[in-house]
């Protein structure tokens, strides 16, 4: 008995939503970055689930590239966060208020 497609999509939607809520609610820049990774993984799971369901490979290739892009994004993001931390000893996004948010 295979796991129905809807379960995968539901799980992916939950992961994506958790990520969105994390981005909106959390105040620590590193946790926000982790939440963005969750959003990407929600999308990845949807792509893989559809790819297996439709017997069509391009979705899985898509996931490979998304993983690489996400790593590049995380590297740049962490570098920027390190820079912010050296400038002001804090990674709390509430303190980023020199300009109106």
């Amino acid at each position, binding site marked *: *008995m*295979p*796991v129905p497609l809807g379960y995968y999509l539901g799980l992916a939607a939950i992961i994506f939503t958790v990520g969105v809520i994390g981005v909106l609610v959390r105040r620590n820049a590193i946790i926000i970055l982790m939440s963005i990774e969750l959003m990407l993984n929600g999308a990845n799971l949807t792509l893989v689930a559809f790819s297996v369901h439709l017997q069509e490979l391009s979705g899985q290739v898509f996931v490979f590239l998304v993983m690489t892009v996400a*790593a590049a994004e*995380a590297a740049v993001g*962490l*570098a920027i966060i390190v820079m912010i931390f050296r400038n002001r000893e804090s990674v709390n996004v509430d303190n980023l208020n020199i300009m109106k948010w």
Partner: protein
Amino acid sequence: MPSDYAYVGLFLIFGVAFVLITFFFARLLRPSRPNPIKNRSYECGETAVGSAWVQYNVSYYIYALIFVIFDVELVFLFPWAAAYRSLGLFAFVEMFIFIMILVFGLAYAWRKGALKWV
């Protein structure tokens, strides 16, 4: 043909059991004679100095960042290697160019001094 759920269940059981069984046998085999010096964080005779919450040198982050970038490129090598025979020369040249781009990145990091151990 077992159901997909059975696979998930097997993975779950195996994952949990592996940890528990290892701990169980380790407990059976090892002698247990604790004393305060042995219970310290570093068991090899070093006295721990200060708290662990100190600032690391920033170049450790750079190693981590470089690792993150190069680590995931491997994901492209596996499918290429698996289908190597059927892909032919064109894919070989493409992968060669891909690796060369990565080598350029590594050379760049090296030249900028990001790989220097501090």
